[in-house]
């Protein structure tokens, strides 16, 4: 079963290595992983998808939470969430297919970000179903290359897992013990 997680990480050296080395060492199967800054300075947010039975998903969460630089892990399997992925897709075009390709792209609200004489590059955002459908529709025309960001996710509703709310009342979690360290 696929589990989608958000993990809040301290921006410390090697934090990503610590996380991925833990995945590798314990044999967790990670489908995708993407990281970015949050609205809180010093805290990054990582979305990752693991293919694991429920007990293992639990283990993944707890083992991750044992890392000193991992502040909290949310398993979205237990709550409602929105997720999106961004894909860049380069597809072949010929004078005959050009129009059809553009019409399909319009249906998917994909943006044409590079118009060449023999290829287009589309940018498309959406959930997994939409992305898969778009790629499948483009395939017959000849996909030259694609790049996907991996899925990112947020909980629905106001009781959100944004960093400032997650850590409200537990300011010490937010405050890195070494905060204020001389800048590199």
């Amino acid at each position: 079963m696929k589990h989608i997680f958000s993990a809040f990480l301290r921006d410390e050296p090697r934090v990503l290595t610590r996380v991925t080395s833990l995945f590798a060492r314990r044999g967790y199967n990670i489908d995708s992983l993407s990281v970015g800054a949050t609205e809180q300075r010093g805290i990054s947010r990582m979305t990752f998808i693991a293919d694991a039975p429920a007990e293992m998903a639990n283990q993944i969460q707890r083992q991750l939470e044992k890392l000193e630089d991992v502040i909290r892990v949310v398993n979205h399997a237990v709550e409602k969430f929105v997720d999106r992925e961004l894909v860049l897709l380069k597809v072949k075009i010929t004078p005959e297919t050009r129009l059809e390709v553009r019409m399909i792209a319009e249906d998917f609200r994909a943006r044409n970000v590079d118009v060449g004489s023999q290829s287009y590059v589309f940018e498309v955002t959406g959930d997994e179903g939409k992305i898969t459908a778009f790629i499948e529709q483009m395939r017959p025309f000849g996909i030259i290359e694609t790049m996907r960001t991996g899925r990112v996710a947020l909980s629905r509703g106001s009781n959100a897992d944004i960093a400032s709310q997650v850590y409200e009342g537990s300011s010490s979690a937010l405050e890195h013990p070494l905060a204020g360290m001389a800048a590199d």
Partner: protein
Amino acid sequence: MNGAEALLKTLEAHGVTTIFGHPGGTIMPVYDALYDSPIQHILVRHEQGGGHAAEGWARVTGGLGVCMATSGPGATNLVTALADAMMDSLPILAITGNVARPLIGTDAFQEADITGITMPITKHNFLVRHADDVSKTVAEAIRIALSGRPGPVLVDLPKDVQLELTTAPIVGPIPRPAALIPSDSSIEIALGMLRNAKQPVLMVGGGASDAAPAVLEFAHKTGIPVITTLMGLGNFPASDPQWLGMPGMHGSVAANRAITNSDVLIGLGMRFDDRVTGKTSRFAQNAKIIHIDIDTAEHSKLIPAFCAIHGDATETLTRLTASLEPMDLTDWWVKLTDWQARQPNRPAWGAAAAIQMISSQLSGDTIVVSDVGQHQMLTAQLHPFEQPRKWVNSGGAGTMGFALPAALGASLATKQMVVAIAGDGSSQMTIQELATLRKYDIPVKFAIINNGYLGMVRQWQEMFHAKRYSEVYLEDSNPDFPILASAYRIPGFAASTPDELETCIKEWLAVDGPAVLEVRVPQESNVFPMVPAGKGLDEMLDDDPKLEAKELVTA
């Protein structure tokens, strides 16, 4: 003040009195600062020895053990000890030098990415980049090492950071949160399970080393039998009639039968290691598990917990004891008493007899250290541990060479005589620490049970590889251990018979300072009971099938 001085001042502020280490190029500023520091440095002869000595210190005190090494090979020599400490949850602070900041990442002389190397075998590690950060980083490292489930933390200090001047304040101990109180709901669930239990058992691990009084109270009030794991030996007195022994691969008949037949099994501060459970699908098949641990990642990691309790061992047990009435376990105890009587047959003379003779000369509060192999399992089986933190061994990692350095750390920590029992194989992995015993006159009584083999491996080859003894024979090339000891100017004794041993033990223990005792024992004896690898606890072999009845004495 420079970074090196900030390090030592911070250690002092944390009550650190002793560092086990070995100098080298990139850690020299710290050694220079040590020259004027009240902290005692114990010069070991190999950094692994320093790491194990710090482990011995941590294990017997429950506090922080500190070791130190230079960069590159010095740092990598610490790796085995750090992995060992991680497995056995020992609070260790490891300090390493590293090349100066501008050289990091350039494959400089004696550069090693020690924070990268030790990432999976430390609880956490730090590379300090500014002298201003030294004190707070070290304080934080110590906090992490000691908090929750303890573990080793490494702090890597580039040489120029040690030399850089700083005015940053020295950071004292960071207050630790109070002991974790378990949730009422988890306690209620456990109470409900225990009230209905007919055949309950409590299994106590190394995580309960500071909860022995609470374990005793719980057991005595409820009448529930107690098993102590290899790491938990001493957390319940061996002399108590409610003690069933050790579980697992070389566990007692009583402990393994009790687990197999239990209906409620409480795991306290233990992690259901595969050497404890045997084949997990056959482990305690009739039992619902209550698992009490400070580390929630251990809950249901290997054995599903029906009731997982996240809490401090003492806080949790005290709550359970308070709400439970004495239980009527008469029928259960009829079975248990029968199993308790079933001790394996052992030959009249051999490693087991020798260890038993040594053990019988020791008082209940003597610290006993073992190395890894048959002698370790026999010591665990035969020595009656009465108190917590008196037993030091490499449980999770099974590191040969652990005993001698761990014993010297334990002895320095307690300022007491410590008895270490090793094999002819293991002892040689860190034998150079005899020099450390001599240098500081540390009263470690080091016994080497010489069976001429890497005995534990030979036992497996005998049982599972059709006696094809591949690369386990040592006798043809073992040193003469008493002569080796005397080369280090340490008194050495040797015994080959029970009578000789009888007199030797007394002289050996009476030596003022370190002493070595070699016991030459018959070669091909095995450790039983045994659960063959991959089998269930219920498939245990109680006795050595090859022993002939006439040779037997009952232990």
